[in-house]
């Protein structure tokens, strides 16, 4: 495998509704900040890959419009995934592995505010049996939480602690949407949103975007003083139907973690794509993390959850901590689908 690193990153300030901006206007400054940070000319990337979903803003061919933001002239080698940007990064990493590229621009964005996001996400369910009933993403998550609590994987109290810890951690994250939390006891006395989930158990609805620059080998060292090397990356899927799955485990995370080599060294920091509080312990268990790992120091998706970007942001948050020298080895997790169905795990390391 070729050595590939994240050498530059940028995010938008994540907000509940970027109500004045179209999607190009939302992502353009983010892309250009990452490009400038990398020091690579904006026409000089060997490959470009993005992630987005038409359903979020109700915008057919959303990615065609946002291509305007990357200066695709003269024409560029480019691709797009209808998935979280973490998978766009994966495709770019594969491209670099083939030797056809040494550098890549990756970006993704989600403008969820124009629609009723939990209802929109019902279109991801089985189109014959589930989607016609219109359960929301929160309804599915609530069922998973119910199973997890019943099986002793977590508790409402632990879930409130996770919410409290995450949002308070986000106080130091300049991009976060939610940056403080009431006390745990107050959280637990609040009303249910979808029993057993309360509002604090759910990630906020967010508009935002993210951009990443990848480079291979010496090219990475040339453009970054401390590249965040991708030592392992893998993704796996579980079956879809929530009535067949054991909802309180995520076997696909375990497989991806093993393939990515999570257990090959200490995990100083982990950024987990847990959009609901009860998912954090499920992911931690599947990754084999213990209490020595700092989880979601950025606040995680509970502090800002731009759809199609929040997974890639997990890689960015780990990479940023490697760039700064704060940590030497960390794990990022991204998810797609309902109830942790599709999962990507990456191990990032600094040198020296």
């Amino acid at each position, binding site marked *: 495998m070729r050595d590939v690193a994240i050498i530059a990153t940028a995010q938008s300030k994540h907000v509940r509704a970027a109500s004045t901006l*179209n999607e190009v206007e939302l992502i*353009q400054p983010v892309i250009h900040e990452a490009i400038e940070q990398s020091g690579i000319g904006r026409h000089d990337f060997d490959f470009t890959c993005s992630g987005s979903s038409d359903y979020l803003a109700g915008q057919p061919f959303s990615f065609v419009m946002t291509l305007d933001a990357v200066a695709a002239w003269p024409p560029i080698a480019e691709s797009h995934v209808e998935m979280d940007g973490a998978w766009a990064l994966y495709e770019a990493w594969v491209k670099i592995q083939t030797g056809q590229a040494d550098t890549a621009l990756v970006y993704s964005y989600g403008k969820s505010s124009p629609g009723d996001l939990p209802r929109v996400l019902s279109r991801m369910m089985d189109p014959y049996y589930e989607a016609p009933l219109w359960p929301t993403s929160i309804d599915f998550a609530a069922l998973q939480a119910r199973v997890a609590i019943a099986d002793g994987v977590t508790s409402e109290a632990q879930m409130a602690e996770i919410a409290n810890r995450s949002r308070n951690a986000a106080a130091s994250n300049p991009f976060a949407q939610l940056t403080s939390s009431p006390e745990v006891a107050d959280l637990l006395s609040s009303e249910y949103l979808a029993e057993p989930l309360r509002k604090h158990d759910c990630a906020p609805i967010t508009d935002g975007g993210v951009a990443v620059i990848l480079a291979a080998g010496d090219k990475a060292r040339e453009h970054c003083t401390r590249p965040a090397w991708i030592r392992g990356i893998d993704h796996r899927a579980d079956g879809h139907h929530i009535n067949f799955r054991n909802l309180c485990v995520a076997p696909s995370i375990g497989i991806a973690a093993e393939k990515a080599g999570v257990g090959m060294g200490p995990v100083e920091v982990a950024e987990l794509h847990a959009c609901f509080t009860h998912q954090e312990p499920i992911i931690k268990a599947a990754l084999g993390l213990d209490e020595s790992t700092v989880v979601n120091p950025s606040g995680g998706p509970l502090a800002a959850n731009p759809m199609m970007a929040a997974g890639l942001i997990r890689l960015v948050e780990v990479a940023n901590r490697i760039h700064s020298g704060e940590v030497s080895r960390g794990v990022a997790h991204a998810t797609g689908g309902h109830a942790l169905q599709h999962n990507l795990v990456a191990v990032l390391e600094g040198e020296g």
Partner: protein
Amino acid sequence: MSDSAPIELPEGLWSQPAVDTSAVDSITDVESVQLITTPAKFVYDYTPGVARTRFLRAIEQKRLVGQRCPETQKVYIPPAGVSPVSGLPTLEEVELGLDGTVVSYCIVNLDFTGNAQEIPYVSALILVDGSDIPIYGLVREIAPEDVHFGLRLKSVWVEPEEMTTSFENIKWWAPNGEPDVPKSELADYV
């Protein structure tokens, strides 16, 4: 062709195995459901964005305003806020003319949109004076067979009291009587 026998798929191809419903009496001798309908309706709170809003606010005042790429100096209409060539924001606004030139067109003979256009109608790529990229527009007040490349057009607007922040303010485009623009001057716009 006399040979109208249907050609067969290769033999032995996988296909879905037959389903055995013999254990369920109630569905063995009735007509099977083969199709369900699953209606879906979404209403999104759409915004055209900052740059496009400026354009639409101008169009409400019977003005066409483009935006200039800071790198190539090309003028875009309707602007999306970013130059697709440089990837940079297009902050400089440029007042455009209300006339334009046909760079290409097609004659539509079927009402696809249900908008009750008179059939046939001409859908043209029109280069608005002062801009560098053609837009689609309806051409009327001329027989479809007389439309041609280089034809000069004026924009025909709805009555002042009907003006809104919409492209629909321009009802259609019609010949303005000026001489044709030579093809050579339009070569870069298709």
